[in-house]
Structure formats: C-alpha cells, structure tokens
C-alpha cells in the first residue's frame, strides 16, 4: 500500500481536490496504472510530467522502482534548471 | 548604397576590403575579412565585446564606420599571439581560468593589452576601471583582474635586462 501525496495543483484538478490518498502498488509502473484507473488522466500526467519522491528520495522516470509495503510517494512537478 | 575600397593594416598585414552603406568596422572585420574573433554583443558600444586597437588606441569596432579604417593600423585578437606563441595575457587567462563561455574574452584581452601598452604596472583599481567598458556575465571579474595583473608582472619581467 503506497501512501501518495501531491503538492501539485494539476493533480488536484484531476482528483477532485484530493491531495493525499492510498494506492495498492508494488512498483512505480503499477502505481501509475492504479492512479490512471482511479483518476482518469492522472497516471498519464504523472508519467509525462512529474518526478516522484519515494520514501524521501527523488526519482525521475524510474518506472521499475519498487515500492515497499508502506512507502510514501510524493508527486512533484518535474524540476529542471537554468 | 555605395561601397568603397578600404585599405588598412590588420595585425601587421596590408588588407583591402569593401566597406560602406552603414557597415561598421566590426561588420567589415567579421564579414569582409572573415576575422570572426571580434564579437558583436550589443552594436552600440556598451559591452566592449568588439574591442580592437586602432593606431594604438582602444576602440569599439561597432562604433567606427568601415571606411574610417582607411590607412589605419588595426590590431584584433587574431594578431595577439606572436606566430603561435601566446601573449602573456592569453597565457594568464588560461592559467587562472579567467574565462568561462569565452565570448567576451577577445574584447577583454584587447582592452587589457591596450592598458598594459600604456601602463605596465597598473593597480587593481586601475585595471578594474580600465576594463569597466568590457562586460563579462560569467566570471564576476575576479579571475580576469588577477590574470591581467599577473600578465603585467610577466611582461615587466620580460622587459628586464637579462
């Protein structure tokens, strides 16, 4: 069970205002599938545009990353730089 | 829009090129003589990227019209090294990492040469005020000033009787 938290307003637009929710998933790929099933459009948004902080560490594009039984996943707008 | 033949001496060599129709010396150097080492940063004489030495005087090439170069002796960055041997200024800029992107570097080197040609022992303040006409956005000037002062010392050493 991954506890998903969002700091993005684009996410809120797709979840009807929810910022935090629990999702059953063992990998990032599974998480994105589950998000898309529960909030249509959210899985695609996360895959295309967002980084994830899994238990505190930032991952960009890491689809196969495993999630623990009680992982915290934060959805973060992708960070670039200048 | 007429252009005239201009004769000048560039880096010690006689040259002939067409200039006119509002072309600046900078345009002529870059487009007619294909000496692209001198850069255009602003076209209005504010940034110093186009610094060259004309008859011993530091000039922004973008502020001089091409036909005004007639009969003049012009030094550009391409002539700073002596037959492949780097000038002490070029050597120190490399030693001290006094460049990052390198775009303002030709102008800074020519301006620095003009300084040392007339003042072989400048103070830090004199170096900073002389180079105030050359904007660098990358370095914050610290290593540039150190490089110029160390190059001045190198040149004074070279001048000493052996």
């Amino acid at each position: 069970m991954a506890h998903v938290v969002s700091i993005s307003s684009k996410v809120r637009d797709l979840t009807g205002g929810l910022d935090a929710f629990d999702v059953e998933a063992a990998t990032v790929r599974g998480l994105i599938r589950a998000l898309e099933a529960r909030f249509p459009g959210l899985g695609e948004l996360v895959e295309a545009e967002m980084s994830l902080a899994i238990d505190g560490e930032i991952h960009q594009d890491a689809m196969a990353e495993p999630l623990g039984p009680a992982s915290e996943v934060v959805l973060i707008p992708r960070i670039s730089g200048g | 829009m007429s252009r005239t033949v201009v004769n000048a001496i560039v880096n010690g060599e006689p040259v002939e090129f067409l200039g006119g129709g509002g072309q600046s010396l900078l345009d002529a150097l870059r487009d007619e003589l294909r000496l692209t080492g001198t850069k255009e940063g602003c076209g209005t004489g504010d940034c110093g990227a186009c610094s060259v030495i004309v008859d011993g005087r530091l000039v922004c090439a973008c502020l001089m019209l091409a036909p005004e170069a007639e009969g003049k002796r012009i030094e550009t960055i391409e002539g700073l090294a002596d037959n492949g041997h780097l000038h002490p200024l070029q050597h120190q800029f490399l030693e001290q990492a006094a460049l990052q992107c390198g775009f303002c570097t030709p102008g800074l080197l020519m301006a620095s040469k003009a300084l040392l040609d007339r003042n072989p022992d400048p103070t830090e303040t004199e170096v900073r005020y002389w180079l105030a006409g050359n904007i660098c956005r990358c370095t914050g000037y610290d290593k540039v000033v150190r490089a110029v002062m160390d190059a001045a010392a190198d040149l004074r050493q070279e001048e000493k009787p052996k």
Partner: protein
Amino acid sequence: MSDGNQSPVSFKVVGHRPIRPDGVDKVTGRAQFGADFHLPGMLTGRIKRSPHPHARILKIDTSAAEKLPGVKAIVTGADLDVGAGGDIEAGEHAAAMKDVAANVLASGKVFYQGHAVAAVAATSPEIAAEALDLIEVTYEVLPHVIDVDEAIAAGAAVLHDDMFTKGVTPKPAKPSNVAQRHVMGRGDVKAAFAAADVVIEGRYTTAAVHQGYIEPHACVASWGADGQSTIWCSSQGQFLVRAMTARILNLPLSDIKVIPAEIGGGFGGKTTVYLEPVALALSRKCGRPVKLVMSREEVFLASGPTSGASMDIKLAATKDGKITGAEMELRYQAGAFAGSPVNLGCMTAFACYDVENLALVGLDVVSNRPKVAAYRAPGAPMAAFAVESAIDDLARKLNMDPIDLRILNAVRDGAKTVYGATVRYSAFVETLEAVKAHPHYQAKLKPGQARGVAAGFWFNIGGESSAAVHVDEDGGATVVSSNPDIGGSRASMAMMAAETLGLPIERVRCTIADTTSIGFSGSTGGSRVTFATGMAVVEAAQKVVADLKRRAAQTWECDIAHVEYRDGVATCLDPSKDAKPLSIKALAGKSAKTGGPIAAEVSLNAQGAAAGYGVHVCDLEIDAETGRTTVVRYTAAQDVGRAIHPAYVEGQLQGGAAQGVGWALNEEYVYNAKGLLDNASFLDYRMPVASDLPMIDTILVEAKPNPRHPYGAKGVGEVPIVPPLAAVSNAVSALVGKRMTALPLSPIVVLAAMGKA
C-alpha cells in the same frame, strides 16, 4: 566502480587545475560561436516585431516586400505547423509547444512589444531591413497590463480568453491572467502562529531581470532539397533545439541535424528556441542557408527574462529563534504565456530550514511582457530574497547572530523538505560554520559599512546524458560529450576520464558532438553536466578499462581476475605467467588483434543528484550623496560535494554572485505608461562591470561528497545566484536603518529610503 567517498588525496587529476582543453581557441578568437558561421549562398534573416504591447493582428501584407529585389523568402505564423502531441521539457518547466510556437511567430495576437510577427531572408542586411519596413501589419490595439499585481486585479486586460486558472476548484467561470495556482504545505500554520513568541511579516517585490549573456541568440539554418536540414546555433541543448524545431515545423527528428556552436553564455535563457524554427522555415522557402542573429535590443525585447515577483511572507518563531511556522504567497510574472517558475519558488523557499508548519501559495500570472525563460536556479532567488530578509528581521528582533540563527534552524540529513525529498549528504551546517570561522565574517567593519548574510538552496538535477570514450591507436583518448560547454565542462569531462583511465590530462581531449554523433542528452543546465554527463563519461571510461583488462588477459592467456589496471598500465598478478606489464598504449597499438577498436558509449538517466546550499557574506558602503551602493567585500561559500576542477567551481560561485549583486542593486526592466520598454540596451540595463565589484572570495565545502557520483560531485552552477539578493539587501537595510523590500536597490530607491530623494 569508483566510490564518491574516495579520499581526494589519492586523485591524480580530479581536484587539480589543468588548462582547459578548448582554452587556446577561446583566447585566440578561433572558437566558433553561432554568428561566426558562414556558408556559400547564405542569406541574412531579419524579424519584424510588434510595436504594441497587446494587439490583435488583423492583416499582414507582405506583397510589397516580396517584390523587393534580393528578398528570397518571407514567413509568418501561418508557416509554422505545430505537430500533434503535448509538452516538451524546456528550461525550468514543461512548455506547451503551442505557446512556444506562438512566441516564435505570433498567431492571431501579439502579447508584448517585440513579439515576432514576420521574418524575411534577403541577400544583404540592408535589403532585409528595407523589406521589414515594406511589410504592412494592421493591428487592433488592445489595452495592456504590465505589473503582476495589476494583472491579477479585477478589471485588468485579459491576455488569453482560454486561460482559466488551473489548480482552483471549482474551475473559474471567467478567464483571467492567473494561469495556475500552486498550493503546498504541511502541518498547522494557524496553531504555529497562535503559539508564536515572535511574528515577522513583510511584502517583498523583485523586478524582472535578464540573464544578460553577452552573446545574442544566433543561428544558421540550411534546408536541403530532400528535406534534410542542418542548424548551427548557440544553444544550451542541441537535442532540445532539434526537438522544438521539429515539433514547431512538424518534421521528423532524424531529418534535422543540430550542430552546437560555442555558446556565449546562457544561464537558462538559451534552453528554448526563438530563431531556429524561423530560420529553417525561411531556408525551406528558398532553398538557401539563412543566418538569423538577434540584436541586443531584440534580446531585451523578445527573449525571456526571468519573472519579477511580488511576495507576502509571515514567520512564526519562538523567543529562542526556532522558526515554527511560515506562510507565504508568491506571485510571479510569466510574461506573455503561462509558465513562470513560481512552483519552484514555493518548493525552494524554505528548503534550507527545518520548519514544521508551512503554507505556501504560488500564482503564475501572465502580462504583456516577453515570455519568461529559465534563469539560473529559476524561481529560487526571488523567494530566497523574501525568506532571507525575513530571517534577518528575526535575527535583529531577537538580537541573535544571523549565522547562529540559521544554524539553529538549518536542515540536517534526514529532514523532510516540503516537496517530498529527504535531505541527504547535506553540508549546509558545515557551510554555515565555515563562513562563521572565515576571516571575512570575523573582520571588523569600518564606519559607514554594513554586512549582510544570506543562504540559498538549489535542487540540482540528473537526467539523460550520453558520452563516449575512444582510445586512440597511440594510447591517448577522446571523450565525446553530448552537452554544450558553457563554463568549462570540457575540462572536467576530460579530467574524470583521465582519472578513470589512468592517463595524464594532456592525453585526453574532449569534443562536443552534434545530434547525429552521440546519444540523446538533456540540455546543459540544471547544474547537471558535471554530475550526469560526467557519470556517463566515467561509466564509458570504466567500460574501456574493463575492455583493456580483457585484452591483457587474452594476451597473457591468464584469468581476467588476475589482471590489475592502474595508472594506465595493466599488470598480471599471476606469478606463473611470463607476463610483462602492458600499457594502454601497447594495448591500443594492437587492438585489432584483441577484438578491434577500443571504444565505449554510455547513455544513462542519472539519478541521485544531490542538492546544494550556499551562504554569502556581503560588506558594502553607500554614498550618501548619490545613493550608490558599493560592495567592498564579498565571500561566497557553498556545499559543492567535490570540486572536479576547483578553478571552474570557484568561477561558478563568483559569476553567480556577481549576477545576484546586479539583480539586487541595479537590474530591472523599465516600462513606460504605453507598455513599451524604456531600457532595452546595456547602457540602461545596468549589469555589474569590473569597477563595481571587489575580488570575490570563495569557500568550497567538500565535507559531504555525493556518493551517487563516481567522484562525489554535486551540481554547483545555480546555487550561487540564490543568496546574493538578500545578502546585499540585508546589508543595505542595516546601513539605511530600515528594511528594504523592493529590488533593485538603485540609487534613487536608496536615497528615498534615507529620506534624501
């Protein structure tokens, strides 16, 4: 596998200061920048730009211009064809390609003075200029709005009638200039404020500032009759230019070759496209190469500055100085199209400090100004200005040393940031302590001088990079890098390869590849090249080392486990073999006999980038008659992980600090009542020159190398621009005797604050 925690004492190349391999070309004028290319038959391109800050385009009549002899092609927005499909990573945020295309050549409306509406290619600059005058554009002028708070207010002219603020539930009924509302936070700020011993409040504003690169945007585009094209350009990312140009003109990527020229500064401002699609569209129309270069005025009018900002901040603290809560609203200008870095401002604002209760709101606001582009740590300097000023107020109120107050509140490893990452490998506290112990901080101030201190943070990123290492037949090596070199990265790539291969630095050269000659890479920016491309370089070099060992084992007919490779020589550890050591030169000379050429290419998506922290100290004086502020002493300290080439790391700290000083004291966009820019030149857009600054001392803190990078490197390029705004303002505030809240602190502003205006 190299360990980032290796002791630096054991490095032969990394950590030293060799001459950069591309240096001679740069000091002799040989290096080729974007405007230095010349091709046979090349035409000059020029762009016609809107004189109005906001207008509908009713008609563009190019007929007279087309008839002018020497004019070979004319294009408008109608010649662009944005391909299907959504967004592309660009600079500080994902950019909708439609907006980028409309910014490159206007479609329907113009949104700022200088917005491109048409372009010509002609046989000479004079004819191109004349052709521009002959293009007739009919506009319906519309009311405009410039200031961010004015753009939010009711009754403001609305730029896009399809802009309904994202992030607001329910969706607004009417369009506005607020593109998006970001919200983030944690804990209970209400309770924190209710329980606070001290509350600090303030409203802070900063002006839009330009990246100020000395080289204007420049490119040459050449369309071939079979649809394949080549672009030479000054850019921070050749793959990014290819992708955006292909998307804007609806072309396959493999048909465009982008050759990165040397780049004369970027700082984020060249992580997008302005000219390349236009030049290519012109070249396509006439079949000849087209050179397109911006004038300095065009750079100011039409290339992205960063956002100006208006921010409200409140801090709650205990009487011992522990910050228990903070509330902040940040309103950033996006320019003509959505996409300011306000969400990054929210994420970085308190990233240095362990604050339990946070409530941050960020508004992304459009107005009739050029579309913003990334600028070194996008979004962070403005937010840090407000936060570090408020913390300075707190230090004053509690009569605490400003460094001690920051040490008390500083994040340490294990702390949670508001954006979800856990702090790791951080040397922020060590950096604060290094500053405290430094002679500058210990030095007594002279009368009429004041000192300001401030801290700053930047994430630094990893991402996709590619690199190849080729061993030459005589045992030297070439590194092929996927990333343009803005600040000397060729040196650090060559150094890391030399260290890994055990070669002297003089035998390793580095070249920057075009889009056809190396695997894909993200742009040069985000403080990622030494980290991510460096990682690719090291992994490629490690593959080469493994290959060399294999070949040695084959030559000696021994087990590869018995091969040791050190300092460029393979030795056989099996005493039963008659095996003389084999140098890389010997192995390279016989490579055909052991399997073929020795080379490796690595493409990766680097993870594990570590954030950076900076602390700056600024001493200054103010001339009471003119209000001119002079910085007399400046020290920049930073948590750098490990400095691969210390001189270039120092250079990043010094350059970023100088930009920050300019941002604090003089730089701003000055608009008049007509919405037109009054200061589109280096004369009036006042950046620091050599006489404005003292030497800038640096402290490179290497207490915590990043173990995720083979040599411990952290990104360093962006952090240095984050602390200076408040470091300068805190000192000016101390000298003037009141809190300065609006940047820049130009002489007029300072005189007014001193009551002398």
